[in-house]
């Protein structure tokens, strides 16, 4: 089959899967109405809250109100969401069986699911096609352009639905289709027992379709279409358990915050077209140099606004942690491995534009560096396992922007690929933990899970080693490449911040591992007996993802700053040249090559050392001496410790400020306008009506129908006329 046909089929297959699931999915699943099984789950949830759980060891500041503040979602276990969020609220007689629920009561009729078969099968086929295309592009050294049809044609504004697959798209295709397919498989087990089973697969397929449009489109508008469409899918999947108010709210928040970025992105696209009369990547990049720098800078910053929203960078990062309300497979696929990378992809794709706009590059780098440390500082204190991973994702994406901003394009994409694999693995692992631990998400109520969840434990440790940047694992190579580039290109301060973030990353990652898998079980005793390893369909994807998590770095990243991936992407980033290299830096001095026994090797050593140090500190504080974390917070000078801790736990109050300014402020403004509408504008309209009626009513009194009155009027008029005649005319 010609590659062009495969490229056209790659997005078409999940689209077909979506249509299939929507049309017939509901008929393929059989979920017995009575299979709720909340009762016994609620019981042990209660037991947990009643039982005095000594978790003080894991909290820096032991105070009662802290506990309430730090675990807003305690008990809102992911796959129990609707059992807890809705079952208690909707009276039984109102529950018509169309809602969702958690697992099935033992002994009750088992639900039967078949709606996953076609969507998952099609995505599997898509994965095969993607790998063929990947090979053809990367190893065959080809680029493909496929035009499907003319979408919009208005005057000079002509946009085709067409695809461009080059090295960059191929790299994303690798991540998107691999993680996408594995998440489908994983979801078969994870969503078992859920009433929305078919709906879930429909959304997943629609997401795959949208994401493929996003990465394979050959012009900015197609990118925008995929961009918005993944936003829709993200909305639908975050709010998947819609009965839970927090999930519904998080879905809305994600969409709206993303739209704030899209405002800029959309304007950026328009500005490109207005200046160049084309949106095709190739034509735009070829002509961008003809514009003046101010225009290019504005375009780049507008595009970057979209990236900040989609990739959850400060100040638009607030939606991603809330997005953890969605089922965990969604977090793994959309909110870790694929969709959130779209912003990085956008900036990388538009590298010829950014390369011409130093101010925009600096902006990208600064936002990246700041978000990296900001998000890591929040991840340090989170107790919800998914929130730790969410802030970690924000922080890691920030690394990528940091890399893009300093012109280390390939390093950014390298980190994108390796992060996609290992963070997907970690999220799926956390889902397995949540599943096995009976829906618990709060790490303070976990512990010792390695005794019962061997495979989950092993694979998560592999993922964590990658995230912590321990040698031979993927994250080590990709992260250190970013740090080394920062150093070599002359960004000393950024490099130091990056090192600190690397240390924090290793710490919070292994804090998570130790709290979850080590120590003793801190949940209710009854729950421990139910802790179990997850189903094979869930464990298998973990094992499979462990392979790239170990190998991607070794295969693509050796030698550092010159691995295979650099060759694959050379064409894409060729135009950007030496953008981002500071004068006086090592690169500017002409030294490009990595030397193991030189600065390069030293940087590697430092990177590895901070990773190991972070793990060691986590081991010290969370395994050996559980009380020392609290002591450390107490020892921070000036008594700032508790305050700093609280600020971190509360995400530095950014959400609260937005809530106050935008949500409250917006409603206030809107209400004021509504008052204006009703009282002033409509008041004037009604006033005009009132005036006409009043004048008319007044004049009506003159029409009495009595001859005497009219006679008097005539006489008076005559008198006036005579008077006027007598006084004026004469």
């Amino acid at each position, binding site marked *: 089959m010609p590659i062009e046909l495969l490229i056209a089929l790659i997005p078409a297959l999940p689209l077909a899967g979506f249509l299939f699931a929507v049309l017939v999915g509901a008929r393929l699943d059989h979920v017995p109405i009575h299979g709720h099984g909340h009762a016994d789950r609620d019981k042990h949830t209660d037991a947990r809250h009643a039982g005095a759980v000594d978790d003080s060891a894991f909290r820096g500041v032991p105070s009662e109100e802290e506990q309430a503040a730090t675990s807003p979602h305690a008990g809102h276990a992911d796959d129990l969401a609707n059992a807890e969020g809705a079952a208690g609220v909707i009276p039984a007689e109102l529950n018509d069986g169309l809602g969702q629920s958690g697992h099935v009561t033992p002994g009750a009729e088992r639900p039967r699911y078949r709606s996953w078969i076609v969507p998952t099968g099609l995505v599997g086929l898509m994965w095969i096609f993607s790998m063929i295309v990947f090979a053809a592009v990367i190893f065959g050294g080809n680029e493909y352009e496929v035009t499907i049809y003319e979408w919009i044609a208005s005057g000079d504004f002509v946009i085709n639905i067409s695809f461009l697959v080059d090295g960059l798209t191929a790299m994303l295709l690798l991540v998107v289709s691999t993680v996408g397919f594995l998440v489908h498989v994983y979801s078969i087990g994870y969503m078992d027992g859920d009433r929305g089973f078919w709906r879930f697969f429909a959304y997943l397929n629609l997401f795959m379709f949208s994401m493929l449009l996003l990465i394979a489109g050959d012009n900015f508008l197609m990118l925008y279409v995929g961009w918005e469409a993944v936003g829709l899918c993200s909305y639908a999947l975050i709010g998947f358990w819609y009965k839970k108010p927090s999930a*519904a709210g998080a879905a809305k928040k994600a969409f709206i915050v993303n739209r704030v970025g899209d405002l800029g992105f959309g304007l950026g696209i*328009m500005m490109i077209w207005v200046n160049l009369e084309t949106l095709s990547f190739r034509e735009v990049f070829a002509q961008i140099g003809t514009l003046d720098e101010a225009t290019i800078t504005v375009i780049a910053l507008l595009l970057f606004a979209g990236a900040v929203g989609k990739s959850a960078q400060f100040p638009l990062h607030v939606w991603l942690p809330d997005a953890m309300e969605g089922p965990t497979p969604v977090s793994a696929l959309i909110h870790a491995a694929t969709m959130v990378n779209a912003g990085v992809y956008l900036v990388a794709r538009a590298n010829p534009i950014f390369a011409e706009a130093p101010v925009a590059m600096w902006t990208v780098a600064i936002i990246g560096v700041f978000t990296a440390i900001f998000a890591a500082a929040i991840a340090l204190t989170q107790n919800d396992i998914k929130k730790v991973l969410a802030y970690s994702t924000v922080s890691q994406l920030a690394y990528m922007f940091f890399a893009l901003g300093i012109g280390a394009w390939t390093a950014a994409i390298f980190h994108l690929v390796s992060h996609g694999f290992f963070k997907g693995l970690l999220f799926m692992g956390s889902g397995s933990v949540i599943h096995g631990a009976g829906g618990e998400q709060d790490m303070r109520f976990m512990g010792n899970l390695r005794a019962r969840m061997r495979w989950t434990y092993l694979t998560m440790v592999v993922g964590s080693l990658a995230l912590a940047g321990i040698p031979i694992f993927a994250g080590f190579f990709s992260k250190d490449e970013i740090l080394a580039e920062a150093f070599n290109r002359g960004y000393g301060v950024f490099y130091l911040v990056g090192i600190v973030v690397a240390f924090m990353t290793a710490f919070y990652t292994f804090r998570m591992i130790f709290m979850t898998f080590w120590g003793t079980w801190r949940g209710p005793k009854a729950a421990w007996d139910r802790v179990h390893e997850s189903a094979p369909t869930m464990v298998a994807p973990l094992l499979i993802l462990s392979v790239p998590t170990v190998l991607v770095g070794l295969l693509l990243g050796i030698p550092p700053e010159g691995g295979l991936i650099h060759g694959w992407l050379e064409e894409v980033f060729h135009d950007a040249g030496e953008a981002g290299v500071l004068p006086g830096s090592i690169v500017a001095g002409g030294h490009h090559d990595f030397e193991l026994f030189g600065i390069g090797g030293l940087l590697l050593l430092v990177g590895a050392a901070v990773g190991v140090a972070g793990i060691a500190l986590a081991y010290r504080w969370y395994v050996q001496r559980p009380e020392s974390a609290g002591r450390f917070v107490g020892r921070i000078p000036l008594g700032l410790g508790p305050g700093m801790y609280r600020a971190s736990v509360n995400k530095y109050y950014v959400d609260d400020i937005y809530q106050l300014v935008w949500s409250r402020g917006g409603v206030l403004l809107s209400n004021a306008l509504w008052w204006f509408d009703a009282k002033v504008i409509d008041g004037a309209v009604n006033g005009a009506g009132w005036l006409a009626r009043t004048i008319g009513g007044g004049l009506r009194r003159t029409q009495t129908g009595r001859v005497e009155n009219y006679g008097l009027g005539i006489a008076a008029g005559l008198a006036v006329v005579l008077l006027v005649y007598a006084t004026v005319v004469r």
Partner: protein
Amino acid sequence: MDGFPLLSAIVFSPVIGALILLFVPGTNHRAVRWIALGAVLVSFALSLLLLGYDPAGSEFQFREDLPWIDAFGIRYTLGVDGLSVVLVMLTTLLSVVAIVYSWEPIQTKVKAYYATMLLLMVGMLGVFVALDLFLFYVFWEVSLFPMYFVIGIWGGPQRIYATVKFVLYTLVGSLLMLVAILAVVIAHAASGNSLTFSYEALRGFAYTDSLQALAFVAFFLAFAIKVPMWPLHTWLPDAHVEAPTAGSIILAGVLLKLGGYGFLRYNLPLLPDAAISFAPIIIGLAVIAIIYGGLVAMVQPDLKKLVAYSSVSHMGFVMLGTFVFNEQGLQGAIYQMISHGITTGALFLLVGVIYEQTHDRQIAHMGGLNARVPRYAAMFGLFTFASIGLPGLSGFVGEFLVILGAFRYNGLVAAAAMVVVIISAVYMLWMFQRVFFSVPSDWMRKWWPSLRDMNRTEWIALAPLAVLAVVLGVYPGPVLDMISVPVDRIIEAVNGAGLTGFGPLW
């Protein structure tokens, strides 16, 4: 088909239906409904023949031209260009939808209702095909009074207030328009031409600046009230809230488009200097409408009012696109009219579905409906996102083209209009969350056991709109082709040689 008066047949087949209704006993609701449906279906089927319009051919096709009032040069002239074709098809389609949807909700004075609706369709269709200004005016007024009765008789509790406001407000505009029409005609005749109301003859005549200014303002008021433009919009929420569902579908779907059509057909080509001069002011008002409508929609407690204010915002795009005078803006404006007709019509229909069951539209009274009526929720979701302007659905194409056109005019105007991508997401998704997610309100629980999902009639009425919302988003080519030549003509008229507008009037 040569010689067959296709346009007359499209316009007047509803009248024939109404005449037949006269001979059917009013108690036989079934027969009345089928006859009305038959009449609009004939009109719809005939309008499909307009697809034979040749975009590359002469400007107005399917022409009919008969003498009417010879003494004043008034003729019965009909004809369509691409702009008319798409609007006529939108009208006949939405008429079918409205008639089908009324099947169950309308149970009182059924015969009168259908007769009125049929007459309404005649007026609307006539406006889009008339090429004689007097004939246009007659159709314009014909489209007004049936709606007066539809709201006033079959409407909600405040119907009299709402309908009187609607009629007086629009009448003020249309009477001014009549004056403007006469002024234009007389000015044209006074310079030695024969007295004529023919659109084609009057167009292209160089009217004096002062006449243009005054006539423009008069036309503007008529059309701007209809659109409605801020700040002339306050009749709209009241009319929508009180109108029966089918009335709202027609009101939002077609009647508002009469205003947009009026600008495109009359204000711009007849009075190009004035159009250029007034454009900045109108663009300003349009941007205000876009943002203001969205913000006010956000805090509406009544579902229908929310959709009504969202219309103010969406129609602001039509005005914005119209007055930036470039291809993208104008095509986007027309596309936005079509898309708004479909999505907002569908949203009003969907609001009607729940209203028929609970007789209430308070958003605070809803909640959790997704669990009980999932298909209804899915359809509502589809049109919610079509209305937000999600790419791949109809709303995106028009909105994007308009903003793009605005960007060519001025980047800041585009940026201001673009804010709507946030605001529309806020008001629509917040509404969607409160209606469909979470758990039912205490009020809704009373209705919970008796709530039903969409029935067959509702599906039949909604299905074509759902299909179009997707098709127009994925494949806008045919419609854009159809309107591209008329748009070029408008631009030519406005940007023609020597037309630079006149100086400020103050």
